């Protein structure tokens, strides 16, 4: 077994980043710590291979934390998939606009509209249901975007090493040093025409350094592992080693991190909308946007905010529970 601590140092006392080359190096420590732990976990899989997943699964099956998370996410996925057939009304149809007046901006619950309407007379329940799909899309795309960016940077850094590694990791450290919400805020603000895509892009960019560090750590810890050394001695070229031997072994930590990032993305989308940097077009509902926009009604019609908020909380919790229990299941230390 390779010693991951040689590169990434995870004993509780010594800092994660032992080289101290930059003033920013120690920032974002929380995220780094998680990332490095994950990278370490992934690096083990080449030793124990399938058995690691098997033992993880054995643990997860009996872990209530994981099960709760899994049930939530399963329900969420089902709703998101069949949303258009599940929703009783068209989420864009202003069926109740006749009841929207300045004195009563939010139509009350009524037969056929169990949760009432929103301030444009659209069925709130249908918007929540269809919103599940859009929320999933935002979360998944932002996560995939972050993953893709992280893959490029992390592969460059971990696969090539040397000065490339140095430069990439300095950039990543600087990015990690900025509070993630402020960074998302800054990126979202720069677009002249905000839309769903600018929100996704802003959240994705914030996740890039997280994935980059994760993948780099995982690759570096594999660099001297037996199967990589073996491949190298057989004359397999570097790119092939990276893609065929190193990346597949990073799948575990990426899945864990991806699950956690999905939760963060959904919450960040809500925060951006709250700060006025969300998608201005609400024809396709999304929970974060619904919550961010409902702040006007929080005093008078709190349910308009509470429903999307509960959806976000439950789904974000589901992803987080899954991610955390996965992480623990894959963590070698926890199996001692």
């Amino acid at each position, binding site marked *: 077994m390779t010693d991951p601590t040689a590169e990434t140092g995870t004993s509780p006392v010594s800092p994660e980043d032992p080289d101290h080359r930059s003033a920013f190096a120690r920032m974002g420590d929380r995220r780094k710590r998680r990332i490095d732990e994950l990278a370490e976990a992934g690096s083990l899989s080449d030793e124990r291979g399938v058995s690691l997943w098997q033992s993880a699964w054995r643990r997860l099956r009996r872990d209530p934390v994981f099960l709760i998370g899994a049930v939530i996410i399963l329900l969420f996925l089902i709703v998101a998939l069949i949303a258009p057939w599940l929703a009783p009304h068209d989420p864009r149809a202003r069926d109740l606009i006749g009841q929207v007046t300045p004195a009563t*901006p939010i139509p009350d619950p009524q037969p056929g509209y169990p949760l009432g309407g929103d301030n444009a007379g659209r069925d709130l329940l249908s918007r929540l249901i269809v919103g599940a799909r859009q929320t999933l899309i935002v979360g998944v795309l932002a996560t995939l975007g972050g993953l893709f960016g992280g893959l490029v940077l992390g592969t460059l850094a971990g696969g090539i090493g040397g000065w490339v590694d140095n430069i990439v990791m300095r950039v990543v450290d600087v990015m990690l040093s900025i509070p993630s919400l402020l960074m998302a805020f800054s990126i979202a603000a720069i677009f002249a025409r*905000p839309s769903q895509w600018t929100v996704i892009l802003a959240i994705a960019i914030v996740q890039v350094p997280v994935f980059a560090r994760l993948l780099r750590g995982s690759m570096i810890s594999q660099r001297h592992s037996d199967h990589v050394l073996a491949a190298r001695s057989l004359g397999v070229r570097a790119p092939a080693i990276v893609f065929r031997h190193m990346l597949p072994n990073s799948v575990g930590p990426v899945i864990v991190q991806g699950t956690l990032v999905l939760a963060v993305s959904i919450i960040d989308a809500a925060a951006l909308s709250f700060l*006025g940097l969300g998608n201005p077009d609400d024809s396709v509902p999304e929970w974060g946007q619904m919550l961010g926009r409902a702040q006007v009604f929080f005093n008078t019609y709190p349910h308009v905010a509470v429903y999307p908020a509960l959806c976000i909380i439950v789904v974000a919790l589901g992803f987080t529970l899954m991610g955390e229990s996965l992480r623990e299941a894959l963590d070698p230390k926890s199996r001692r």
Partner: protein
Amino acid sequence: MRNRSVGALASAAALALLLTSCAESDRDTGDDGDGAPAGTDNATGTEPAAGGDDGASDATFVFGAAGAPTTFDPFYASDGETFRVTRQIFQNLIGIEEGGSEAVPELATSWESEDGLVWDFAIQEGVTFHDGTPLDAEAVCANFERWADQNEAGQSPSGAYYYGNDFGFGEDSLYESCEATDELTAQVTVSRVTGKFPMVLSQSSYAIQSPTAMEEYDANGIALEGEAFVFPEYAQEHPTGTGPFMFESYDNAGGSVTLTRNDDYWGDPAGVSEIVFRIIPDENARRQELEAGTINGYDLPNPVDWQALEDAGNQVLIRDPFNILYLALNPVADPQLEDPLVRQALYHALNREQFVTSQLPAGAEVATQFMPSTVSGWSSGIEAYEYDVEKARDLLEQAGKSDLTIELWYPSEVTRPYMPDPTRVYDAVKADWEAAGITVETVTKPWAGGYIDDTQASRAPAFFLGWTGDLNSADNFLCAFFCGDDNQFGTSAYDWHEDLQEQIAAADAEADEATRIGLYESLNEAIMSPEWLPGLPISHSPPAIVVGENVQGLVASPLTAEDFSTVTITE
């Protein structure tokens, strides 16, 4: 209708003064009923405030402000948050009637002119500034001179915005001279006849300030430093006026402004001993502070909250709408709009009646022209563009634009008094237009994050904007919209652009009031004619101000120029 002739004007002024004092007496008796038994004799407004300890209480009126004041010298300000504070400290030569928009005497008891160029202002006797300086004709002229004598920073639109707009600096300035012909008569000469002088002096910026204090604290020392304006000591710490309240302190860190009652005030003393403006930028927070009883009132409550606020026992005072929300169409941004048929079609497709009744607060009105009906010059003879989807389709077909696609812009994350919720206006217009077969492409930008820039630079084909009037003047509305070759409506792309410019200038330069009003009426009719129609006036929306159950005496002003000295608070 106001009469231009000198004598009539003077008598109207006197009458207004009389009415005002009557109103004040009424108010006093009203207060007494509410439980200040000691102050029953405090009825006449001319008695100086010996009664500071009988009728007036030592209550504090806490008002939730949405933003910090720019400065305390209203001459360098152009925003409501600043004026709300300075109006309590300062007074103008010409005031605004309580609860209305007409000009009434304030520090000048009357004003008259033979030719519209030389104006004699009779100054109120027995008034002193907060620093003890007496108000006389010299002091008034010192103010006029001070206004004209601005450095480069002062002349900037971010300095003396109103003066730059209304008077202008240098050679072309409307202001010529001011002379104290006797102790209480200031003779002001202007360089040309214009309909807005002297009424323009009723705007908050033209507050009469203490010449002593201005001298001592370098009131004109505004400076441009780097990327920002730095205000002189006077404007930040020593604003000195004649009003019922005196500036006490500004707590930057805590976000509050404190004013105390001027016990030597020449009129009725203020009903509370202290006003505190607490700066609470978040609308929800303001509302909840009021509910918790930690503030006594705040301005511009969101119309969706009105009902709930009243249900909770608060008083929502709705002002008469003195604003306009319009949809501007700019042919420079989109040449399709050059065709009047297209513009007419867009208008006929709008169901403004439904929008106003369903989306705007009670008291809102459908607009027929680019000014509210209370402005002199509003024309009653304008034919309404009725809501007619079929007609809209026909017009588009005639224009060969049945498949019209148009970009519609609206600002995000902003509320304006004329547009409490931009999203709703946009929603309604989009739905209406789509119903007429028009394809709508949405563009939205933050207010200061590109919306203002782009709409003013003719980059937006169709967009929402509006205006709250500064005073009862048609020019204040029309010129803000249409003056100049690169105005936001892009009228220079039309062949009637020159005609429009000439008519606006001619109406403003007309000395006779009746004739001038006639000119504005026909100008409004021309603007709304099918051939011109540069944009689509939508609505006049009443802004509100809300105060708690225990606050009495606040009179809402259509110009949002409330005078807090009439406020009293019961325990």
